[in-house]
């Protein structure tokens, strides 16, 4: 309550309590004489006003008030208005809290003539019926639930309540605390930013003191009028108030929780910081291991011995080392600061070498800047340095860059997968339950290659030829084209169509366009179809039937120079063939002049589902494939 809600109260547009007579002064409250004290009643701020809301109290209970002093802001149907006291006194009791409504004429607060009468006024008020306040103010029994507020400590303090920043505001969010716990605050100083439905507003302290405990943290909301923080009059009372605040917040005691939390980063930072802080000192006064002779020679030759690299035992500098430097044979050691790319600079006494943001962050985290190693200009502590010290940011390792080489920036951190990438990931996981096995074989490619050289002019691609060859081999061993089904405790599902799917890497994923009926169609037809499919895949225009209908798959990485690899078997199929690069090898050959010959060779690896396809099936299939590609390449173009 000890707050000015800056710029809320309308200036000089106030009507008097009874009519609309324009007055520059804020309206004054009618104070009704009542027993020991007086009552402040809800004023009528316009002729149509039936009830009013106390937007904010500018004074707190126990505050002295003077006639003419604005003590609260009341919302009428027209505007928020400052309301002034008519006479001097002390606010003994606030009956209508901020944000609450009261009918016109009803008491909103009690005023005592002086401090000695406060008790009497309160006693009479409590006797008057609404004694609930008195009980709630009493100390709760020891067994009281944690949510009940403990008795306030016997120290002078005040509460900061969530102010009502607009007429429609029911609760407010603390956007940010401009002060940290323990900070000294002075009247008129903005201490927090509160978000209302109209604007974000600075809320100012109304008196000097110390921000003892924050009850409503940044980002949290509080009902209008609910306490958001406690202000201590004396710095020494802060711990007591923090303990009290813990009972107010109803959650885990923030003071108790905050203390270890605050201490932890400091403790964590200390070991890190200690060597850092010691480094320059060590560099300056580093003990030089040099033989007396070396020192004398250095003097004679005018060599700075601190720049000589020692080659003696344990790095001791010998006379020879000095002579080597003097003659130019050995290079001068770079000064100690060379480890850091930033210039070595010792700040003048009393200078805090930290940027404004670093200072603010360190203060908030209750970190001593002196314990943080600075990486900014002139060794200054930057915001990042503080964030690293508090563990809010990963330290950035300085890259070692060779002169003239460009810095390679590696991507870092999580990146959401595209839909296609997610689909690939799911499909791969689904294969985990398949007992796959792999069989490899070399295939001589001279004839195949000769054929390709012959037909590539017609637009026939290697992919089309491979698909055709595989499809023809499958004709002979249809088991390879089958899939396993758990139905009836195990069923082999044969497929009458041979649809060859081939993996294509595209931007952001992987897809397997499919050449249907590859055994039946001409290789020209397959080549043309393949070209279309790849084009469609790149543009993302494949229809499901065009990439989901494969019965057998081929993955070819030969063009990348891969010699051999194994593929993962796609679900719902029996086999996938991984194709390596064609390379020239020397093989034994009795007929050849030297007993060996040079052939083109390719290694293929078949992955199969062992539930229905066995090693011999795989071996026979590969043998047939080799037979077609080595000895019957004409079948491909027939």
């Amino acid at each position: 309550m000890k707050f000015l809600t800056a710029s809320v109260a309308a200036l000089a547009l106030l009507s008097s309590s009874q009519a609309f007579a324009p007055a520059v002064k804020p309206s004054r409250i009618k104070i009704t004489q009542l027993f020991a004290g007086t009552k402040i009643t809800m004023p009528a701020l316009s002729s149509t006003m039936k009830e009013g809301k106390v937007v904010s109290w500018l004074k707190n209970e126990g505050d002295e008030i003077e006639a003419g002093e604005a003590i609260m802001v009341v919302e009428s149907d027209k505007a928020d208005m400052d309301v002034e006291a008519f006479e001097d006194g002390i606010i003994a009791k606030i009956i209508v809290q901020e944000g609450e409504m009261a009918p016109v004429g009803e008491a909103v607060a009690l005023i005592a003539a002086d401090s000695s009468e406060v008790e009497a006024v309160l006693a009479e008020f409590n006797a008057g019926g609404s004694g609930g306040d008195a009980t709630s103010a009493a100390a709760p029994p020891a067994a009281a639930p944690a949510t009940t507020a403990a008795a306030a400590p016997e120290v002078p303090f005040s509460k900061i309540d969530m102010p009502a920043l607009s007429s429609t505001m029911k609760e407010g969010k603390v956007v940010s605390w401009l002060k940290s716990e323990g900070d000294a605050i002075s009247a008129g100083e903005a201490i927090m930013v509160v978000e209302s439905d109209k604007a974000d507003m600075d809320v100012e302290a109304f008196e000097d003191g110390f921000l003892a405990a924050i009850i409503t943290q940044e980002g949290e909301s509080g009902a209008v009028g609910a306490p958001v923080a406690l202000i201590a009059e004396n710095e020494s009372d802060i711990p007591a108030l923090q303990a009290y605040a813990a009972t107010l917040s109803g959650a885990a005691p923030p003071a108790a929780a905050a203390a270890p939390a605050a201490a932890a980063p400091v403790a964590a930072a200390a070991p890190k910081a200690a060597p850092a802080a010691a480094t320059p000192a060590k560099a300056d006064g580093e003990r030089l291991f040099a033989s007396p002779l070396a020192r004398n020679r250095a003097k004679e030759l005018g060599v700075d011995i601190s720049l000589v690299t020692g080659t003696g035992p344990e790095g001791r500098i010998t006379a020879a080392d000095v002579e080597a430097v003097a003659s130019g044979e050995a290079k001068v050691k770079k000064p100690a600061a060379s480890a850091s790319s930033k210039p070595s600079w010792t700040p003048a006494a009393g200078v805090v070498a930290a940027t404004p943001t670093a200072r603010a962050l360190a203060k908030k985290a209750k970190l001593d800047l002196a314990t943080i190693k600075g990486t900014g200009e002139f060794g200054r502590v930057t915001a990042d340095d503080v964030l690293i010290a508090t563990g809010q940011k990963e330290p950035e390792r300085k890259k070692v860059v060779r002169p003239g080489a460009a810095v390679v920036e590696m991507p870092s951190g999580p990146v959401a997968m595209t839909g296609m990438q997610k689909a690939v990931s799911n499909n791969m996981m689904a294969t985990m339950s398949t007992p796959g096995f792999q069989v490899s074989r070399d295939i001589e490619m001279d004839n195949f290659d000769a054929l390709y050289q012959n037909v590539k002019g017609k637009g026939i691609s290697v992919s089309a030829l491979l698909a055709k060859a595989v499809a023809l081999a499958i004709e002979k061993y249809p088991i390879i084209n089958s899939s396993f089904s758990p139905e009836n405790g195990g069923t082999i599902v044969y497929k009458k169509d041979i649809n060859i799917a081939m993996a294509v890497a595209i931007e952001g994923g992987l897809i397997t366009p499919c050449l249907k009926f590859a055994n039946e169609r001409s290789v020209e037809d397959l080549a043309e179809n393949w070209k279309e499919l790849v084009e469609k895949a790149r543009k993302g225009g494949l229809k499901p039937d065009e990439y989901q209908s494969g019965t057998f798959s081929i993955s070819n990485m030969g063009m990348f120079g891969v010699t051999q690899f194994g593929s993962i078997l796609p679900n719902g199929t029996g086999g996938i063939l991984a194709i390596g690069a064609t390379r020239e090898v020397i093989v034994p050959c009795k007929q050849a002049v030297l007993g060996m010959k040079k052939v083109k060779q390719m290694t293929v690896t078949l992955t199969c589902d062992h539930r229905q396809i066995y090693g011999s099936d795989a071996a026979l299939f590969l043998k047939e494939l080799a037979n077609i590609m080595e000895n019957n390449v004409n079948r491909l173009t027939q």
Partner: protein
Amino acid sequence: MRILVTSVIALASSAAAFSPITTFRSSVTALEASKCGQYDFDVAIIGCGVGGHGAALHARAQGLETAVFSGADIGGTCVNRGCVPSKALLAASGRVREMKNDEHLKSLGITVDGEVKYDRQGIADHATNLANRVKGNLEASLVGLGVQVIEGRGSLTGNAHEVKDEATGKIYTFKDIILAPGSVPFVPPGITVDEKTVFTSDGALKLPYVPEWVAIVGSGYIGLEFSDVYTALGSEVTFIEAMDNIMPTFDREIAKMAERLLIRDRPIDYRTSVFAAEVIPGIPGEKPVTIKMIDAKTKEHVETIEVDAAMIATGRVPNTKNMGLENRGITVNRGFVAVNEKMEVLTSHDEGATVIPNLYCIGDANGKMMLAHAASAQGISAVENIVGREHVVNHEAIPAACFTHPEIAMVGPTEEQCIERAKAEGWTLGKSQGNFRANSKALAEGEGQGIAKVLFNKDTGKVVAVHIIGLHAADLIQECANAVAAGTTVQELSMMVHTHPTLSEVMDEAFKGAVGMSSH
């Protein structure tokens, strides 16, 4: 291109008949002499900033033969070292700030993939190019309208009607002389400016590098604009302000809002009530700039900081040295030339000072209002008085703007001054406010922060002052300035129709609110 023709004719004429008054008279002035009787020209304008330019254009419009002594600085401070290039820096850095503001972009449904980068030299070049272009346009308009531009700096001689070209030593004669020498940055004692690590706005506009941490001495509009540029480009800023409040010249309510929008949410901190008593330049990468601060009142040392750069934005002082003022018996005060409201030069600022006939002073040099457009208005006013139509500039109706993001704009006195004035003059002050958060256009831009407050005389309804902080405030202020100038009442303004949906409706809300109407 008209000037070329004129020159050719002048050459011909000179050769044919006219005998020059002085032996070194140029051919051009010879022609002018023919038109101006006993003088070479009707009007001389010393200084070619925005003020001098405005005066020259108006003089030509009145048919006066006009010469401008540019001092090799056509465009002056505004165009070359001030308003214009700084707008280029603000435009570019503002974009960087916007594009780096992930949350704001996200609220509009936009994400920027990868880092937003800028080329410092590119931004600096943009500023230089803009200044050169505007300067070129300005020169072209002078030449095109037949103003004689004399390259040298002009100075007064002991004789009335005379101006000496400092470059050539030639003396020209004029019926009337308008002084428009402008101003230069003020550097307080103890501060050493090297224009590299410690610089004024002159050096800052070149944007030679982007420091990690820059101290800005002075939190007026120049300092504030540069803090906007620097923080957008990644620097951290510390303001050093001698007054008790940051942004001391602004309306308090606006300053408080500005503190939240332009300072607190940015990597900026500040010290108030301190002087930067000693500022020692550094060497980039080798030695930081050392700033020793003392308490403004006790003069005791309070803090020393070591920063990468320091910008000195502590105001400007008149550029009136070495222009022969003393030859005409003029006594300046801190460099300022005293003028009456008709812009006629007075012998001094003292009471009883007398008017020096046919001599005027406009712009920063008279200190009435150090704004480019105020100088131009004064220049036009001076010419009006020269041609015999008495004219006085209403400085209360001259708007001003600070081009931060968001902008701040104002016309008329601050609310604090209004309250005092109303009290002293016995009228009732009214106040009404429009909110950007209640404006559809502002919300569409995701820029709902800001207010526009209208201060008016409740007795007459006339607008006294308007202060705006918010999106495009500098554009919104014009309507208000016109209202102040024309004496339009809030009653009249409340009935004027504002385009929907535009930011101008923020003003509509305030005008309507002033007469008890709701705009929404």
